[in-house]
């Protein structure tokens, strides 16, 4: 029995179809959504969402953090930003990482909440570069 997956970014719906399994990067570790799963809400870190059909990965999407809402029959991913892994531009991402690193260096090291946000962004961009350079 397949599961309905939706990957939605603020601008548009990227994917809406049925697959066998979805593996997504949870804040506390990767999690797979499968049919008949107990309903769960999940905070996502920046990383790659893989869609499985018949035990093979058919599509990979990069999400830059967000939320996931899983039930027995569907899985909705609300991504802060999302794109197919093939659309990642490593040059852009590298430039972004450099800009973020610069901000990090200048940031007030006592402002923990700001550092947290920055760190998450940096990790997300690093994950984007990793995903883009691993090829697929």
């Amino acid at each position: 029995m397949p599961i309905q997956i939706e990957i939605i970014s603020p601008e548009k719906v990227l994917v809406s179809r049925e697959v066998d399994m979805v593996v997504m990067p949870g804040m506390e570790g990767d999690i797979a959504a499968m049919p008949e799963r107990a309903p769960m809400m999940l905070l996502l870190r920046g990383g790659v969402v893989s869609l499985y059909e018949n035990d093979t990965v058919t599509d990979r999407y990069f999400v830059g953090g967000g939320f996931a809402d899983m039930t027995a029959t569907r899985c909705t991913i609300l991504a802060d930003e999302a794109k197919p892994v093939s659309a990642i531009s490593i040059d852009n991402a590298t430039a972004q990482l450099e800009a973020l690193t610069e901000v990090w260096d200048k940031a007030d090291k006592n402002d923990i909440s700001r550092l947290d946000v920055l760190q998450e962004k940096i990790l997300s961009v690093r994950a984007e570069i990793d995903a883009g350079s691993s090829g697929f």
Partner: protein
Amino acid sequence: MASLKELRARIGSIKSTRKITSAMKMVAAAKLRRAQASAEAARPYAAAMRRMLGELAAATKGEEGAPRLLAGTGQDKIHLLIPISSDRGLCGGFNSNVNRLTLQTIKKLQAEGKTVKLLPVGRRALSFFTRDYADLIVDKVTGFSGKDVPFSVASDLGDKINALLEAGEIDVCTLVFNKFRNAMTQVPACQQLVPMVMDDVVAKADAASTTAEDVAQYEFEPDEATLLAMLLPRNLQVQIYASLLETAAGENGARMTAMDNATRNAGRTIDSLSKVYNRTRQTNITNELIEIISGAQAV
């Protein structure tokens, strides 16, 4: 009476104005279609967000220490108004409607003894309020309308509001913008962002939890409070984004209507001027003939 030359010049200038207004109408119509499409594309995210927020709100209902974005600061003293206008004019009453409603709200709040702060979005609102209320303006956002609205505008604005709220500089935050009914009508309206109006969300959540689909209890990772703290700023941004998109669509709709009217008016003016022109020309010919004939008779 104006001379033939003057009339010719006026007809010519109105003709070129008509060309411009009808071109602007075409451009606005094309942009309207794009803006409407992107407003529609953004709807699923907002809907899914509302659903998750409803579940979370139901799960955390009754717990203490709700985030400020949800519950506000518990006070009602300092109001932040965010009028959302376009950057450019020539779109009928679109911007002045928003400005007028904001002005009324400012006056009403001030009469109640509340402190008002302003964060105008779009150049039209900014210049309008800079004239009389420059000291109320805490920040501004301009220079994006007319293009595709990037989500980053909304997220920056959301972060600013959040920062003001956390710093205790505002208690209540309200958007004033044109709700998009259809291409012809936009209705200016106020929408309170903070504290969040949760009635419909919670009601929906209650309804949802009694339906068969989601009977099972939700698991949350990390815990509900952390998720809620992450989800609320997002929701704020999404609401702002939706209103920005509606403004973009409304602006183009209003401009299309205004330019359509202008084109029609120009056509009418050209018609009546042409009539005057032809009459004047006939009169002139008649006069000349009379002069020639009476000259010939005198000889």
